[in-house]
């Protein structure tokens, strides 16, 4: 009798899912979350209520991720995947992938699921991971980058990310930290010679204006895990857990679709504004060779093993 009552109470109970990201409403990340809200509220018959806080009103990405961990909000998306699990860095190894399909294949494989599960140790439940836009590529004002030698001595604006700094050092550039919002002027005044970003950011921030060359070297992608508070997820009845998971997966697929198709449009814009070159496979080999010590460094730190790297490469090239 008592159990029945609590079951029906659980059936009537509504669960609030407060979610936040830093991007504005028009950004693919926010757009896909509007989709999420709509789908989840419908699929759960209103038993899960989704409250979205876009535009960074609840704090920076790092702060919001902490809020998910301490449970004041229930979900977020953004960078900082290393804080969820060091395993995510395997997706970001320089020159690891040749095309986005390879990345998505790995993310949707059993290996990808294993990476998502590893975040549980750090107090985060990750129902699905997508890509944060397309490959990151290099623009600069000095010369087209055709081989790794062309990078030598370039003053590159890099975000404050360990992997990026190490990679650009490894390929002979001089990485400089400049805030994202100050990058335009730093490029314009020659404080730095170049920068690396996905096409979308390069267009959004008008970085092409003070730059001359875009070299499509496809050096790195960033994963976009959907961070969820595990205690909140565990509090859901089994049926809602399943609903939540399937909507989350659909959302990340939708997000990938939106984000990658917008990258294509941005690439077209950049082809008009800049002198664009792609690199051949021989040149790519040169880059791969130069960054191998970076891969080794992360293996030495114990974030993942060579076996795991090879597993990823095998899935990617299947």
């Amino acid at each position, binding site marked *: 009798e008592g159990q029945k009552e609590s079951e029906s109470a659980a059936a009537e109970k509504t669960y609030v899912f407060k979610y936040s990201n830093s991007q504005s409403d028009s950004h693919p990340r926010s757009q896909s979350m509007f989709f999420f809200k709509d789908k989840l509220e419908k699929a759960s018959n209103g038993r899960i209520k989704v409250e979205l806080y876009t535009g960074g009103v*609840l704090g920076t990405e790092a702060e919001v991720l902490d*809020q998910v961990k*301490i449970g*004041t909000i229930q979900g977020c998306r953004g960078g900082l995947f290393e804080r969820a699990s060091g395993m995510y860095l395997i997706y970001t190894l320089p020159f690891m992938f040749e095309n986005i399909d390879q990345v998505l294949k790995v993310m949707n494989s059993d290996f990808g699921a294993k990476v998502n599960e590893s975040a549980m140790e750090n107090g985060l439940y990750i129902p699905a991971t997508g890509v944060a836009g397309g490959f990151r590529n290099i623009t600069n004002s000095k010369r087209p980058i055709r081989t790794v030698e062309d990078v030598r001595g370039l003053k590159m604006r890099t975000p404050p990310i360990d992997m990026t700094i190490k990679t650009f050092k490894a390929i002979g550039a001089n990485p400089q930290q400049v805030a994202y919002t100050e990058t335009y*002027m730093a490029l314009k005044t020659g*404080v730095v010679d170049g920068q690396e970003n996905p096409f979308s950011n390069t267009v959004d921030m*008008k970085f092409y204006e003070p730059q001359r060359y875009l070299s499509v070297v496809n050096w790195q992608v960033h994963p976009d895990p959907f961070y969820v508070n595990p205690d909140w997820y565990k509090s859901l009845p089994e049926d809602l857990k399943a609903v939540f998971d399937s909507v989350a997966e659909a959302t990340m697929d939708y997000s990938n679709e939106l984000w990658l198709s917008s990258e294509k449009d941005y690439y077209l814009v950049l082809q008009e504004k800049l002198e664009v070159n792609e690199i051949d496979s021989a040149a790519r080999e040169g880059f791969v060779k130069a960054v191998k010590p970076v891969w080794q460094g992360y293996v030495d730190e114990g974030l993942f093993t060579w076996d795991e790297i090879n597993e990823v490469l095998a899935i990617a090239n299947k």
Partner: protein
Amino acid sequence: MSVLLISLLILLVIGVPIAYSLGISSFLYFILIHPELIAILPQRLFAGMNSYTMIALPLFCLMGFLMNEGGITRRLIDFSLLFVGRLRGGLGLVNVLASMIFGGISGSSVSDTASIGAVLIPEMENKGYSPEFASGITVASSTMGMIIPPSVPMVVYALAAEESVGRLFLGSLFPGLMIGILMLVITVGISSFRKFPREEFSLDKKKKIETFNRAILALIMPLFVIGSVVFGIATATESAGIGVLYAFVVGTVIFRTLKIKKIPKLMKDAIMTSANVMIIIALSKLYIWILAIEHVPQQLSMFISQLNMPGVWIIIAVNLVILVSGTFIDVSPAILLLTPVLLPIVQSFGMNPVQFGVLLISGLAVGLVTPPVGMCLNVASAISGLRIGKIFYGAMPFLAANLITLLLISFVPQLTLWLPELLMK
């Protein structure tokens, strides 16, 4: 929601420090309304303290202190005398002109009142100016200190609105200078009416050049500091650091008036000032987080759009909110509390974030010289021994310059936007 506002007002009135007032009323909100969210408290406090940009705050403070200790005030006053001293009301004009230049060196209005007031208030009284006029013109013209770049409050706003510091510095230059020019005009008018004295002094050409040279090093400093931010050569924080280095070298090597052994004390004053502002920023982050989670800015915007009032009246109402807030609370907390609430509203009426930033800072500057809470009034009162009410009375005619400028900033976007668009694309 009303818990937040009412408790905050009560706490402020009974003299609880502003920082902790914000913390306590947030705490009350959590206890009474959302106990499950209380774990956020330390995180928001920490988030507020954790800011690279705000490191510019103690650095800009120290830069001003070093210039002042290095004898810059006297040099600027002599320099101003050279230009406007011989006109009627010469010392009044010098007071305004020196504040305009000083505004380009210091980031705050309070330090302007303190340093220029300490020299000019007694000197003006000796020359027969009324004490109300001497103190009034000092505080009123010192409002330019935080409007003319560089400006510490502008850095705080840049943080709150996620705007570029360089754009804000450029945007506030013309409005700041305009206040100065209007104040000079007002001073000329009052001086000829009240027959204030001219400064009799004749300098030979050599002396003139010497006075000019003694001030010029101080005069190029703002170009140096602002230029490096605007042209992306350095971040705001770095340019403040360079400014400190510059002030140090000028003070010790060139003016030779800055004593090395005084520097630790100045550094301590600068960083303690920063700590007092930063703790307010830290706890305001908590308060603002609650406003966001309660969707207050959106609700307010919606409420206002439902009023169906013409944009002009909304902008005027926003001006009044800024002026009244500035009268009761200090500049930094006012910026932090008003920005997230007012910026979306004015943006929906087509105002640019840079334009609003300049409007906000210029409006709050007026609050520094209006009772009951006016930091500049307190400082001037300490110098002249006059009650703050009397100083305010003396300042009133000059504040017309601030009010006219406020209206122009509100309704002539080019005044703030032309220069940043010209120089920063």
